[in-house]
């Protein structure tokens, strides 16, 4: 039997696919829409936080970072720079837990790699006390693209041979460049605007039966151990390894609707005691400043400013930065912390 046709099919398909893959890889390396290998050389779009933040942190020039979960998305970098005289970037991670957020920060300011952002002098962190008390404190976000974080060249194929990188990243950026469109700036990066009001803020409360309030939970020794372990594993190593950087810990103002949820779950004292323990620990660190907004009753009861129980409008983000700049809402010692907790 004549096998030549089979052989030619096999060879032609394999060789052509390999050549095409090689071409795509080279194009993606050159354009590098997530800044994994080098600084941007085309106009660029900032999108998809978990994919692009590590590249921004490693390739951009800056001396301050604004980071946190979705509550940090609406901060304006230009306002921050005006208030504090910095050249900041924003690295928000929607839905981030403590492990993910602080390991990313650790990479951004990590000293193990020479030249890694030595100029950073301050970091504003939207701090999630609730997530600190967590049994799985070592586990980051399960679906995070590890291949962009692990410095392993082999699994970079997932980035380079990826139609999404090619189409939504490389081709998009090249078209932006050709059409002369402006880069996404950090003010608009991940910023959002949603309808606010009591209806939205209190939606989860519809499910609550006021007749059936759970019995109160105590912040016990086990919880304290989790909080301690999480702080020591995730947070404190980054703070202590960077004494020359000021960490501004911002405690965001959850709405009164969120506290109603806590009340229903019997968690009010539990959450407050947990916060007390965490903040007491952080107060001991010389390069940490804590700014608390959760005690502002006028703010947290104004449900017109919330689009759900915790997410506030952009105006509150702007106001909080002004307050921080003026030194108000800062918790500097245990007396103030006790007042805040009270």
């Amino acid at each position, binding site marked *: *039997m*004549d*096998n030549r*046709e*089979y*052989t030619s*099919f*096999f060879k*032609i*398909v*394999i060789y*052509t*696919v390999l050549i*095409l*893959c090689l071409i*795509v890889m080279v194009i993606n390396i050159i354009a590098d829409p997530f800044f994994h290998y080098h600084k941007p050389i085309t106009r660029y779009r900032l999108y*998809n*936080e*978990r*994919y692009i933040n590590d590249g921004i942190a490693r390739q951009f020039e800056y001396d301050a970072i604004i980071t946190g979960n*979705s509550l940090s998305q609406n901060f304006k970098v230009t306002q921050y720079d005006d208030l504090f005289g910095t050249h900041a970037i924003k690295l928000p991670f*929607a*839905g981030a837990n403590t492990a993910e957020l602080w390991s990313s920060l650790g990479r951004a300011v990590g000293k193990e790699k020479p030249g890694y952002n030595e100029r950073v002098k301050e970091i504003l962190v939207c701090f999630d006390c609730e997530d600190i008390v967590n049994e799985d404190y070592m586990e980051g976000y399960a*679906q995070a*693209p590890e291949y962009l974080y692990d410095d392993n060249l*082999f*699994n970079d*194929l*997932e*980035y380079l*041979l*990826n*139609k*999404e*990188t*090619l*189409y*939504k*990243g490389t081709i998009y950026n090249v078209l932006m460049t050709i059409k002369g469109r402006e880069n996404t700036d950090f003010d608009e990066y991940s910023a*959002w605007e949603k309808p606010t009001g009591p209806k939205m803020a209190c939606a989860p409360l519809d499910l609550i039966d006021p007749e059936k309030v759970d019995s109160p939970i105590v912040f016990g020794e086990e919880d304290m151990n989790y909080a301690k372990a999480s702080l020591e594993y995730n947070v404190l190593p980054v703070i202590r390894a960077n004494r020359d950087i000021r960490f501004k810990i911002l405690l965001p103002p959850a709405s009164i609707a969120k506290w109603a949820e806590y009340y229903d779950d019997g968690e009010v004292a539990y959450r407050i005691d947990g916060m007390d323990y965490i903040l007491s620990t952080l107060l001991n660190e010389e390069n940490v400043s804590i700014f608390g907004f959760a005690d502002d009753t006028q703010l947290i009861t104004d449900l017109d400013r919330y689009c*759900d129980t915790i*997410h506030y409008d952009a105006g509150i983000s702007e106001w909080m930065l002004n307050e921080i700049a003026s030194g108000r809402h800062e918790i500097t010692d245990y007396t103030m912390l006790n007042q805040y907790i009270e």
Partner: protein
Amino acid sequence: MLFNSYIFIFFMMPLSIMGYYLLRNKKDNWGMIWLLICSFVFIAYLNPLYLAVLIPSICFNYFIAKLMNTPDCKIKRKSLLAVGVTIDVITLLIFKYTGFFIETVNDILDRDSVEIKILLPLGISFYTFQQITFLVDYYRDETLSCSLLEYALFISFYPQFVQGPIVLQSEFIPQLRDENRKNCDQEYLAKGLYRFILGLAKKVLIADGIAVAINTGYIYLAEHGTLSSILLILGYSLQIYFDFSGYTDMAIGLGWMFHIDLSENFDSPYKAGSIEEFWDRWHITLTRFFTRYVYIPLGGSRKGRARTYINIMIIFLLSGLWHGSDISFVVWGIMHGAGMLVCRLIRDVRKSKNDTLSDNRMIKAVKTGITFIYVSAAWVFFRAPDCEKAVRVFTNLLNAGNMNIASRMAEKFNEHIEITMILRLDPLNLNDKFYGIWMMVALVLVLCACLFLPNTKQMTERFRDSIITMTGHKRVITYGLMTVLFFWSILSMSGVSEFVYWSF
């Protein structure tokens, strides 16, 4: 390691095939040893502990079989068989069902659940059944004597290890020994690649493409009305078929590239006109296992009608439990068992009335439609996180006032690059007028492909027969299509997923 991963396609697959043919022609068993090493690497890549369960299990079963064949062994062959099968089943039960058992007991006693996490070894459901077939065939003298190396390779041969097909020793070992199969066969290599590409495309482009939307649909069940629920149910039926049969195509294609024929596992199951026929076309090697090693030993249809029906229900209950350790899988099994009983009853009634007329095309189409709807309804229990959610899917169907497609499900589907391109090119902006319409169109097209196009086995046969005589533009089109399909599938293996929580 997954077939649809870069490390597999660019490293494991070429290295294992090239190494095998380089070593295969030697007199010793180096080719087999190489393939066994590759298989162990493939299995251990995700977790080396998988081998800690697999290797002792292989040795144990081989030892039992050898004892059965020892003339002066004092233990009876039947007792050895019983010991071997029991240990295999207990091992499977421990690894797969301990959590389910504890949870069920706690639910019954209304106690707080104590969570016990037990590592579920890769492929254990498949290789346990394959080892049972070996022991039973050995006992029945229906198989060949083999070395430990051959046996280990029979069980852990990586193309079929994770999701089957469940191969018999008498099918596999003779191929390893066949001198004619020691050389690299260009026809097998070409059709193996062809089948692998088709399987990869089915898995990556179709099944995974649908899965993104269906997973979102199952998260937000409250959003579905009648039409959206129909799409949810239809989508999962297509997803599971293209996922599983795509994986099997890749397994068979890889087997061919090693010059080894693996059993076919699918034969256009959604073209079936009854549940009975469905099981002749869906997961064929599992049906063969249950028929030969459970149904017939239970008495099959030899002990009267009532006993036959009981045996059928037992098979499908076991099948449900084998597929997953949750009560919803039991419900799925019961639905299929009930479907089989109805088919049997109708067949028996028609037989008693000497009704031997064959169905016309219209009746055949109606039967195919009813079977597909029934199978799809059963898949809801297979997919839903629990029975309560499955029932919710059906109650949503009755929400007739709502003929919209759930926005979050449709949005996920529209995020696919291919759909994004269609949305940009669509001059009528159909998606704005009826949100999610392209998801509906895509699912209907995929369903039509299942019902009216030849399956991958038939396509591969046509390719093999026609490639020699193929000339000019036909050849260019075939080569070009397969190249594009392979290339696009590779680019689709890793997505950039928007996170469900991205705007919180």
